[in-house]
């Protein structure tokens, strides 16, 4: 597989920086899978990456090139936090359910903004979603330094801690693995059913595959753009709510280490297949938690992991390009 070349290239860079790549990779592998805690950490990250990866897949299925998952994730986290610190958050079960629902609503409605601008004014959704991310980051920062700041801390820009009743339970004792993984699994199946079995999914896919044919066949392209971005933003929003409910238990500025951006890579690698997302998410999660350990034990900066992620994408894309050219060549010949 062409993605493997990425490991070779990074190995060369490691050698040039005076690190034995065999040891580095071994540490990485051990960090990600070597202990129960390591595996649990990898799975926690997998949970977030699956959810937000699915968000991007839904958008890409409709050829809406949204890069706004990160911003939508934060909006969902905000919605979840507001529920979690409110009176609803103190009710068992309902607290968690309401948090996830609020995440969906906040992220989803935020996703409707680029959809509206695209449909009504023809503004490119990629640019809008990228820029809206910054709007969200600044908005969250403002809230955490101002109205939403925990009154009990003086310095830290944190929100108050959510009620314990709205915190996702730990499923593996003595680790951080929380019940969000179940939500991620359910979401994977749900997105699969949505895209391949439902009426909405058929319309989304048709518009994505061929907008001209969809219009010709009487489909409502504007409506599918709204539905797509609503669902996509909603899934990203759930990711944020689950991060608050399952991991941080409060809203902070660095809640997500760029999950919404890695999700784009995951969606591309999965070829927009929900189950492919789960596999790719696990791979990237392992890469992330492995490189954290690599940093702690060998002092290799985690930017190596970022480089590795980027190179995997580059090589896979090049591989696909060649495969595509090969197909074109044989088709042209006939």
């Amino acid at each position: 597989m062409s993605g493997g070349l990425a490991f070779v290239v990074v190995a060369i860079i490691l050698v040039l920086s005076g690190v034995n790549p065999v040891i580095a990779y071994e540490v990485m592998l051990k960090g990600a899978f070597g202990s129960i805690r390591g595996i649990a950490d990898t799975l926690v990250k997998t949970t977030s990456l699956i959810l937000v990866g699915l968000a991007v897949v839904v958008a890409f299925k409709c050829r809406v090139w949204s890069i706004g998952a990160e911003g939508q994730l934060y909006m969902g986290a905000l919605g979840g936090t507001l529920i979690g610190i409110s009176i609803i958050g103190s009710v068992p079960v309902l607290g968690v359910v309401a948090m996830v629902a609020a995440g969906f609503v906040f992220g989803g409605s935020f996703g409707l903004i680029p959809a509206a601008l695209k449909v009504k004014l023809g503004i490119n959704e990629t640019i809008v979603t990228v820029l809206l991310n910054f709007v969200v980051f600044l908005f969250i920062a403002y809230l955490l330094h101002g109205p939403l700041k925990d009154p009990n801390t003086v310095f830290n820009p944190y929100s108050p801690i959510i009620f314990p009743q709205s915190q996702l339970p730990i499923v593996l004792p003595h680790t951080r693995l929380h019940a969000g993984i179940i939500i991620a699994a359910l979401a994977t199946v749900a997105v699969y059913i949505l895209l391949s079995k439902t009426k909405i999914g058929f319309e989304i896919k048709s518009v994505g595959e061929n907008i001209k044919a969809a219009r010709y066949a009487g489909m409502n392209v504007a409506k599918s753009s709204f539905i797509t971005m609503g669902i996509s933003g909603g899934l990203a929003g759930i990711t944020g709510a689950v991060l608050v409910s399952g991991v941080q238990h409060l809203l902070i500025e660095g809640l997500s280490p760029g999950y919404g951006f890695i999700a784009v890579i995951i969606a591309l690698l999965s070829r927009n297949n929900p189950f492919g997302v789960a596999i790719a998410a696990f791979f990237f999660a392992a890469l992330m938690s492995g490189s954290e350990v690599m940093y702690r034990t060998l002092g290799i900066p985690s930017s190596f992991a970022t480089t590795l992620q980027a190179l995997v994408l580059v090589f896979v894309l090049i591989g696909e390009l060649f495969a595509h050219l090969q197909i074109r060549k044989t088709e042209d010949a006939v």
Partner: protein
Amino acid sequence: MTLKQLNRFLAKLGKFQENTKCSISNSDRVKAEMHNYTKDNENEPIVLMKGINCRFGNLIANQNVTFDLKKGEIHALLGENGAGKTTLMSILYGLYQPESGEIYVRGKDVAIKSSLDAINLGISMVHQHFLLTPPHTVIENIIVGLKSTKGIFLDTSNAEKKILELSQKYGLKIDPKATVGNLSVGEQQRVEIIKALYRDIDILILDEPTGMLTPKEVQTLFEVLRSMVNQGISIIFITHKLREVIEVSNRITVLRNGKVIGTLKTSDTSEDELARMMIGRAIVDHQFNQGSTSKITPTILEIKDVSALNNSNILFLKDICLDLRKGEILGIAGVDGNGQSELAEVIAGLRKVKNGQISLDGRSIVSLSPRQIREGGIAYVPEDRLHTGLILEYTIVENMVLDRWYTKPYCNKLFLNESEMRKFAEKVIKDFDIKTTGLNAPVRSMSGGNLQKIILGRELSRNAKVLIAHNPTRGLDIGATEFVHKQLIKQRENGVGVMLLSLDLEEILAISDRIAVIYAGRIMAIVEKETANVDRIGLLMGGKAMSTIDPL
């Protein structure tokens, strides 16, 4: 850098490559050979292709094909789409390499590895789709890739002189300084032919040269071909149009499924015989029209003073008035790009009406969505079957329900009902005799005729009141064309109003009851079938107003 500059740069680059590849002495030698050859071997074929085999994957494109071209003849290569005509000629022009077989040019065994080799041997090819750069002048397009006598500067004045000489010699009227983008299709074709002749060739291959021309332009082209032949040029004419073959060629080679069925003298054969050879059976003549127009039926679709913009937001359709009656086929004749697409899209609700009114059965449909218009009873076979009519990545089942997936029984409130979708697809596959590659395979790999049958099957099963069919047989072979025609006629017999927009005038004449001619976004005239005549319609298609044409 503007596009124009870039193109100039590329032109110069091409010239540079030409300089490095082909030496002058080489082409002089060939010219000398050409000369000697004409003296010695008057009756030998100038081109002989022997036992050519060529395949693409599992597809056999040419099987043991033998073909010869005599000096100074027009040799037609006749066959349906996919019969292997273009493949054979692409081999001669060096674009493909045969698996086995020999090629002799002027009696010499040659290996043609590239089109440069072919040109050096005096062979050139004019493709179906022109290879010209629209922003450039005629001269620039012609001298692209050639060595200039003035070093790094373009030698336009000498080129112009030579172009005018050629133009005069063969009756190819052209203004060398005109910009190619402003020329008509017929004129662009002349540029392509001059471009070939400019390279001192004496064997010219023309691939489907009449496909996009008006009847008048076809006649002009044929005159040019005759004058070229008289001056010693040998021509290979690829086509699937029987009438043209009979009119212009000296000999005919018929290909079917990659094999040569026979080579005949044109004077010894007939359209019927050629058709049988070409498709392996006789064609049913289009005698469907009797008695259909005798009674005037009520109007089903009324288009009144409709104007609309084109894709560049320029007012393109102007005051279109048409009425389509129940149980008739209304043919819309016209040269490509005169508003046919816009007209069809306006009716289907895919393009906004700027002014005017369209009513279906007395009800205005102007402000309805495409889906509402479909549900109101208009079926539409679009011009671009690959990119509008179908989703190529989808299976045949998904394509069949593209317009009805949201209705019962193909779904319930939330979910699709796949077994009902399959059932429907299987029924249409059977009714329309569609050859599929499997129900679960993307339709991408199916042939054009079968793809068109999917669209027809879907649209006709709507039981619509009006059927808009835009170029429904373009690119289809005779068998599939015949099938489409039969279906359109069956719709007419069922009382459907059929609007047939087609570039193929013969098709329109064959099955329409009335014919409207569209030119520059206007309807020039509507003529009854009885008074229709090719020359008159041809003039209308070229923009001559009705009043200026002498009645018959």
